[in-house]
């Protein structure tokens, strides 16, 4: 996917002034947050389960090579082929190789964010093949000229029902609907034909289970079940960090994933797919491939933000992020928006291509407290800020200002003298109501709000005066 993260601020400006988007975002905000809260009440020990989930994810990452090798062995034992993609381009090449090997002409896909990283759909179409997205959100985006997703579990949730209705009317040539159920049925009718005529199904993978060589798919629409079992070839694509040692571990993680994501106790469908169709089995692919994608993940594993790889893609961090809630997902400019995207995007596409993202957070830590695998998201954003600072990637004005301030703050006597002058000068800028409406070097503040003026004397001055008064009655 094209990286547009360097246009963050411009995009934010547009999105904050897009009335339709803002209305859609308000609706979204009122939905997932309370649903999650209500679903967590069902757990006897949320914090204990969360700690267990964190531990599973972390110890697996600590010995990732071992678990990947075990997964490969067990998947192959069940007749699947395990392929490794070092780069996004490798993903596309491997998929097209598989398609060529089996004479594939039409591919259906259930949702895969990893395949967005390499813009797989475009590569498939460029090779002259047909690809159809079957997740409803992804389908909506595909027929809207491949509009980028704005959320990792609800890729089209920036769109209203009416926008989708107008799109279906325009693209399907059908009468315009105004009922969600009718729209769903219309999409289902269109997609059903493709399930029956596709030669290959591509899915993502929520978990790859090392002890069984299985892929676990967590979905709500049933499309993944159809897309992975009806065509003769199934290709499951996911990142190397999605390995989980055992099905027991999956059970623990599944107590948290749907609850954190959509507020469901369990998703409508959980597919555990192991190996190719066996003798006497009615359903299943005859050929099964796993593509395990690195594309920057091993570099993250070797970095000081490695904890980001614990992510199980529930979306809770973005659902609860007050920045995301106000701007939506598109401004982040790549596959993964919100707090986790602010870590992963710079790591996967280059810090220099996503300069604003580690900074675009108040570090309020609402994301950190809802994360089901306890990723310390603000701490990781701060780690990237440290890299930016060390590599001179922040504007010189910011670096100079910071250095100057810190130079004074380390020298109390000079600091006291400078601040005495400073607060008097600022006091002089205040209007009658005690507000400063324009601050030199503070346009980012006063363009949007007043600055309450300082009292005009520092605490330390007043405190010393008080102490002197008390000493000499």
């Amino acid at each position, binding site marked *: 996917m094209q990286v547009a993260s360097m246009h963050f601020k411009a995009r934010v400006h547009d999105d904050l002034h897009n009335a339709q988007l803002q209305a859609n975002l308000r609706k979204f905000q009122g939905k997932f947050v309370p649903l999650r809260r209500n679903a967590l009440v069902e757990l006897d020990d949320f914090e204990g389960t969360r700690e267990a989930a964190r531990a599973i994810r972390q110890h697996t990452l600590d010995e990732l090579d071992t678990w990947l090798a075990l997964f490969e062995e067990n998947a192959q034992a069940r007749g699947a082929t395990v392929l490794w993609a070092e780069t996004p381009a490798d993903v596309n090449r491997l998929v097209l190789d598989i398609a060529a090997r089996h004479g594939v002409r039409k591919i259906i896909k259930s949702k895969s964010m990893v395949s967005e990283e390499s813009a797989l759909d475009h590569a498939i179409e460029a090779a002259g093949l047909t690809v159809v997205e079957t997740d409803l959100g992804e389908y909506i985006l595909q027929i809207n000229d491949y509009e980028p997703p704005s959320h990792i579990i609800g890729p089209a949730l920036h769109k209203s029902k009416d926008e989708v209705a107008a799109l279906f009317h325009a693209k399907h040539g059908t009468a315009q609907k105004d009922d969600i159920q009718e729209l769903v049925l219309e999409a289902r009718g269109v997609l059903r034909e493709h399930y029956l005529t596709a030669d290959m199904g591509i899915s993502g993978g929520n978990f790859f289970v090392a002890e069984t060589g299985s892929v676990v798919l967590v979905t709500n629409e049933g499309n993944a079940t159809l897309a992975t079992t009806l065509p003769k070839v199934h290709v499951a694509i996911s990142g190397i960090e999605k390995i989980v040692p055992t099905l027991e571990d999956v059970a623990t993680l599944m107590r948290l994933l749907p609850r954190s994501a959509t507020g469901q106790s369990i998703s409508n469908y959980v597919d555990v797919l192991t190996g190719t169709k066996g003798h006497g089995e009615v359903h299943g692919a005859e050929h099964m491939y796993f593509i395990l994608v690195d594309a920057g993940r091993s570099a993250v594993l070797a970095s000081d933000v490695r904890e980001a790889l614990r992510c199980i893609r529930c979306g809770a961090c973005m659902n609860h992020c007050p920045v995301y809630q106000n701007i939506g997902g598109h401004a982040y400019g790549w596959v993964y928006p919100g707090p986790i995207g602010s870590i992963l995007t710079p790591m996967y596409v280059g810090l220099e291509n996503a300069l604003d993202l580690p*900074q675009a957070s108040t570090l309020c830590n609402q994301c950190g407290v809802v994360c089901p695998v306890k990723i310390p998201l603000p701490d990781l954003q701060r780690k990237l800020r440290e890299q930016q600072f060390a590599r001179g990637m922040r504007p010189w004005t910011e670096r100079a200002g910071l250095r100057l301030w810190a130079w004074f*703050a380390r020298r109390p006597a000079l600091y006291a003298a400078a601040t005495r002058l400073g607060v008097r000068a600022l006091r002089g800028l205040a209007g009658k109501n005690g507000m400063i409406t324009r601050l030199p070097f503070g346009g980012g503040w006063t363009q949007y709000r007043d600055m309450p003026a300082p009292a005009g004397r520092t605490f330390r001055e007043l405190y010393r005066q008080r102490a002197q008064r008390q000493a000499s009655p």
Partner: protein
Amino acid sequence: MRVGFFVTCLVDLMRPSVGFAAISLLEAGGAEVFVPPSQTCCGQPAYNSGDRADAIALARKVVAEFDGCDYLVAPSGSCSGMIRTHYAELFAGDAAMSARVAALAARTHELTDFLVNVLRIETIPGRFAGKVTYHDCCAGLREMGVKTQPRTLLAQMPGLELTEMADCETCCGFGGTFALKFGEISSRMADNKCRNVQASGAAAVVLGDLGCILNIEGRLRRTGDTQTRVLHVAEVLAGMTTPTLSS
């Protein structure tokens, strides 16, 4: 009991009345208050901007300044949170400093938490008539566990009616330098906060961090709300709620 008072740089510069209010509360609770005269800043602006070297230098300074105190108390969840939850990471690998930092962290408190859980203050000196709503500042809430403490104290004040607003735990959009770097997002977040404050019917929003006060008050005034007051919890509890322009 010798309580080291960490004024915070924002209170020192912008609103000294908050510092004096806090000291009067600590003294009312029986503490002997000591204000290290060389203190400036906890280093959080440097830390959150990725400037580790300056953050470490300022953290060393704070640790040295408060070595001799039984407690460190700040009228801020943000600065006390920096000291209690983030200093340790700055000195990882430095055993001697780590021990001093851990010892300081263990005796560092946000003001209302200290009043309730350590001093167990029984009489609130201030008087306040009217309806207020409380905004939970992020670091106080999520780093220092400040939630019930200010409400417990405010509820003891006769004449004060506490009402909860919607989304009281949602960030106001301040975020330190975030407010300058991303002024447009920041002010939109502040708008949401202002709307919730106004919808609560409270005459004042009370909170525990000056950064958030500047952000919320600044946005209220810019959007024409000259009535809703934005008060630090120490000012309310101490009965020192003079309007800011004459403070």
